[in-house]
């Protein structure tokens, strides 16, 4: 049951991606729809890891240790700042171009 949580989350985002975006007020005809859906479906890949991070955070905080999660959060923030340019300007732009050509 516990191990099914992350998988269920990822599947929720990948299956219900379009409806979720529509619920937030972006219609299918909007030019934001395609990039929003692709962004959310790519972001859904990270949800299992995010859930694990959340629960581990809670366990450490429950034990009264907030310094270890802080260290790792700083490491993640630094990694994010370093890797985001690569991910956005090489990978995502490629995907986006392909998507916009198809649409």
């Amino acid at each position, binding site marked *: 049951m516990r191990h099914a949580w992350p998988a269920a989350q990822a599947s929720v985002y990948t299956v219900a991606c379009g409806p979720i975006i529509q619920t937030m007020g972006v219609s299918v005809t909007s030019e934001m*729809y395609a990039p*929003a859906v692709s962004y959310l479906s790519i*972001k859904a890949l990270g949800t299992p890891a*995010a859930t694990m991070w*959340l629960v581990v955070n809670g366990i450490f905080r429950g034990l009264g240790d907030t*310094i270890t999660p802080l260290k790792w*959060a700083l490491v993640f923030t630094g990694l994010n700042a370093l890797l985001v340019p690569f991910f956005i300007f090489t990978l995502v732009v490629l995907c986006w171009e392909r998507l916009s050509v198809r649409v």
Partner: protein
Amino acid sequence: MSSRGARFFFVAPAMRWAGLVGAALCLIRGATALSPLSPPLRPLVPTTAAAPSSRAVGTGASEHVVSCRRRPARFVTQSQAASTVGGGEPKDADADAALKRGLDREFVGISLPAFVQFAAEPLASLVDTMYLGRLGATALGAAGVAISAQYSVSKLYNDPLLRTSISLVASGAGKAQASGMSEAAKKEELSQAVTSALLLATLVGIVQVRGGRRLRAKLRASTACCHTRA
């Protein structure tokens, strides 16, 4: 941007208000716990000699129950309780002051790193937004919608997860520390923590879903009105 695309901006302030109210409640709770005006801490674990007599009197027993509810049990160890009960009044006050100082230190030691972590995590999304802005207005808007959608969906089940994991582990650690408690008191404490965590999460979920629905209905009505006029 169309009026439909602008809708999600109306959901964000509602969530922000909920966060502000929660933060204010936390601040009030913390201030009352840390203020010098709050009553000094009493030992939670009664000595075996004192317990039957106080239960026989009746009023003493109810007092003990009230103090149990109001104070976290994990901070009072058996040795501290024994030292406070064994001595007279001045020793009692000394132990209270020492306990209070220890509590203050523990509060600050736990909360400061958590505070820095909460401040550092939005930095990551700030960096994301900074780079996404270079892709153009459409990409930035789309990413904003997607982030907001993911935030509100994940809030529904991640909050219960985080809170229950914190309280479960904290109560487990507390039980290990204050092993002088009776079995029933341990169970009661555990169930109270879990119940309050679940209740809070459910409330947050209901508020979000209802608020979102009502806003959406209102906006739909207003846009329909505009369409008919046009």
